């Protein structure tokens, strides 16, 4: 072969450079030169021998991908691209996660201030963090949908049982990856969600000595601290991604080996024709599938970037505090069902049931051996699946604070109006509009104070939801007709409870006041004062408490309230 100088002498500079470029492109793509790529993009027929097959044989990245698919599985149905999107999300999380790792040290001394540093000192730091956190939530959804569609189209059946089994483990790993990242900001949300979760280990149906040691390993110490944070960090950035990566290749190898199952109606019952693709039903990876995958990647990127910027904001609560438990600790939404179960049944039963359920999922295809994948032949299986999903949805709801063990009614009002964590309508009132003084729930301060009025209206709603009347409402700014009548119940010990259809042990005719005072330049103290006299003996108080929160002019709770995932 001629050297480059020889080529220049032979063809002139221009032609030689073109020829050289062509050669380089062909080497990089492992088989396609410039005109092959242009032809593929134009949608032309390939030349013979087909250069679009060579990358599958010669290149590292494409040798794992099939060179063609059955046209039937390349449409949106039956795959909905969920498997591809799961892989995309894993790569997305890896990239954004590595960027975040640069700015993070897994130590309780600095982890939380690292978070604020990412938000306040790293250009685009908040965006990257939001993208990582949003990506984690989306990945859980995508992986779960992938499993759901695999079940519905019967693709777990022979010969793909093992693929299904690895898929279940991948689902668990995805949940664990997402959850292990939960602890890293070292804020109250993280600390208590994880504390509650791993305390489950203590209740496992095993000898106490095993449970205690498992808990010790998970916490790194008798309580969650520096050791625990470091090992959850290592789980999150090392062990789990590694295991997920390895299992992904096992999973995908099986997918390629067996081929993707056709839509159930497209083949005879009991047949598996995925690997026997007639010439006229082939869709080639290059260019069709590759284009499609690139398009989905671009669309997904657009969605995640725009979502992280405008729709959704990763939460950051106050510093983890082992001695203060927030009132309603919640699991992340994708584990909410387990919290729901804990309200239904004994802890040991629940903790034992979850692994049993997993094993049942994994072995299910080996026992459910009905030959047909068609929907009409699987009425029982599909019905059970939908019942299970309904059960999970209800369990999820039961895990949320909507369905909770209520604390005292004044406390319920307080944490709604002045929450320990995050923003509320009152905290998000613009600082200029905050007025020093004492205010009644539902008070109208005129048109100059629209946000404060709204917050006071919210306070009125919260008070109404947690109280009732025995005929003498004390808050004059709430319409008398809005109070619900108390059902007075006398308990066995002679005490009285004041209930309504919506709650028990409420405040009978409370007097509630919001006090706002400046304690420092640009710092307000907001105090909710509750006086609830005993209806039978007005000189005694059933409840006489107050609840304090502070609001600094620069705290910027207004910003937090702009996002779809914030409740104010």
């Amino acid at each position, binding site marked *: 072969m001629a050297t480059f100088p020889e080529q220049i002498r032979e063809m002139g500079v221009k032609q030689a450079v073109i020829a050289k470029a062509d050669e380089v492109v062909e080497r990089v793509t492992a088989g396609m030169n410039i005109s092959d790529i242009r032809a593929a993009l134009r949608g032309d027929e390939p030349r013979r021998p087909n250069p679009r097959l060579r990358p599958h044989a010669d290149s590292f990245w494409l040798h794992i991908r099939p060179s063609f698919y059955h046209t039937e599985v390349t449409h949106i149905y039956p795959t909905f691209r969920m498997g591809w999107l799961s892989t995309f999300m894993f790569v997305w999380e890896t990239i954004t996660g590595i960027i975040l790792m640069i700015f993070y040290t897994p130590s309780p001394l600095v982890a939380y201030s690292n978070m604020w540093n990412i938000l306040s000192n790293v250009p685009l730091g908040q965006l990257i963090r939001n993208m990582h956190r949003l990506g984690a939530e989306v990945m859980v959804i995508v992986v779960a949908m992938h499993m759901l569609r695999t079940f519905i189209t019967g693709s777990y059946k022979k010969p793909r049982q093992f693929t299904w089994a690895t898929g279940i483990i991948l689902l668990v790993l995805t949940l664990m990856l997402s959850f292990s990242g939960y602890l890293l900001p070292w804020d109250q949300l993280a600390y208590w969600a994880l504390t509650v979760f791993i305390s489950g280990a203590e209740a496992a149906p095993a000898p106490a000595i095993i449970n205690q040691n498992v808990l010790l390993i998970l916490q790194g110490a008798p309580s969650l601290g520096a050791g625990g944070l470091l090992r959850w960090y290592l789980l999150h950035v090392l062990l789990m991604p590694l295991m997920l990566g390895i299992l992904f290749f096992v999973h995908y190898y099986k997918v390629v080996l067996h081929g993707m199952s056709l839509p159930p109606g497209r083949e005879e019952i009991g047949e598996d024709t995925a690997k026997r693709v007639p010439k006229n039903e082939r869709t080639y990876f290059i260019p069709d599938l590759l*284009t499609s995958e690139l398009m989905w990647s*671009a669309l997904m990127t657009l969605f995640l970037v725009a979502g992280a910027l405008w729709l959704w904001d990763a939460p950051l609560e106050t510093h983890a505090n082992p001695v203060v438990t927030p009132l309603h600790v919640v699991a992340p939404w994708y584990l909410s069902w387990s919290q729901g179960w804990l309200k239904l049944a004994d802890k040991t039963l629940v903790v034992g049931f979850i692994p049993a359920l997993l094993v049942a999922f994994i072995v299910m295809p080996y026992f459910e051996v009905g030959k047909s994948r068609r929907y009409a032949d699987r009425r029982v299986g599909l019905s059970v699946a939908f019942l299970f999903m309904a059960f999970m949805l209800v369990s999820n709801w039961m895990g949320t604070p909507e369905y909770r063990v209520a604390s005292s009614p004044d406390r319920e009002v307080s944490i709604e109006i002045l929450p320990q964590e995050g923003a509320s309508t009152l905290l998000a009132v613009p600082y200029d509009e905050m007025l020093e003084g004492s205010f009644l729930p539902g008070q109208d301060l005129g048109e100059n104070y629209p946000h404060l009025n709204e917050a006071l209206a919210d306070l009125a709603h919260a008070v109404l939801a947690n109280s009732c009347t025995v005929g003498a409402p004390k808050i004059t700014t709430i319409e008398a007709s809005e109070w619900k009548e108390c059902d007075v119940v006398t308990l066995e010990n002679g005490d009285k409870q004041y209930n309504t259809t919506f709650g028990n042990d409420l405040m009978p005719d409370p007097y509630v006041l919001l006090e706002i005072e400046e304690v420092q330049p640009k710092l307000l103290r907001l105090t909710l004062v509750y006086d609830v006299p005993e209806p039978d003996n007005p000189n005694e108080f059933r409840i006489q408490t107050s609840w304090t929160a502070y609001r600094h002019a620069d705290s910027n709770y207004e910003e937090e309230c702009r996002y779809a995932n914030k409740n104010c």
Partner: protein
Amino acid sequence: MQVKIVIGTISLMLTMIILGFAALREPSRLEDFTLARQGRQIENGAELFQSQCMTCHGVNGKAEECYDAATGEQIGCAGLPLNYGPLLCEDTSQRMINMNWEGSKPAFIQATISSGRYGTAMPTWAADFGGPLRPDEIEDLVQFVLNWETEELCSAPAFQYEWPATIEELLAEFPEGDAARGKELYVTYGCSGCHGDPEGDSAWAGTGPWQGHLAEEAGTRIEGMSGQQYVYESVLYPNNYIVEQCPTGPCNTPSAMASNNFYARMGDTAEKPQDLVDIMTYLGILP
């Protein structure tokens, strides 16, 4: 396929535009978050101050109005004022000079909270030194204390009364003492925080000696010195004379009271020396 290429290309371009938009607003966003971080530290510091510091340093940090956390009764403030010009004003405040502190002001406050002040009622607060607070909580408290520094607080011209050498000269200027007012001041200056109630139980076990019998004893301390002059000097220059036995053991040398700096606090306006006369009247040292 062409449609997919178009959709993909447009998506990619939109993503780039959005990222460009995000990059443009970054400087102001970073600034907002820097302020928000500080604001929330101050909020948390305020909560900690309320729960941990208020009993000794007073409701507004002026060490004038202190309440017992359990009973709600007003008590003497055992702590020093924090909402206080000589502590907060100037990069190197008067207090830092008095305490020979050569570092920064936030570090001074942080160090004082963390390790406490030995021999006084101020305990160690940092978990590192056996206290209850985490490092981040100490930082929040520092931010809260520094937030008291305002132009209003620091614009008042610094005034220091030139204390005369003898009590007689002071009395020439402030002849009348008010025992009732002195009783109040004995609490608000925090005297009772360490020395107890002079009208109460003599078996006081605080940081400093009980002063109920000061009127009889003061004159016997130093040969040739009147009781009035002895107390006068002891308040202004605590290290001049130190008694040997305090209720909880040998008294500290140098005196723990030195950090109270009554020389400055009772002399930062032209009228304030009256406070000392009132207190001495209350204790029965002056008629």
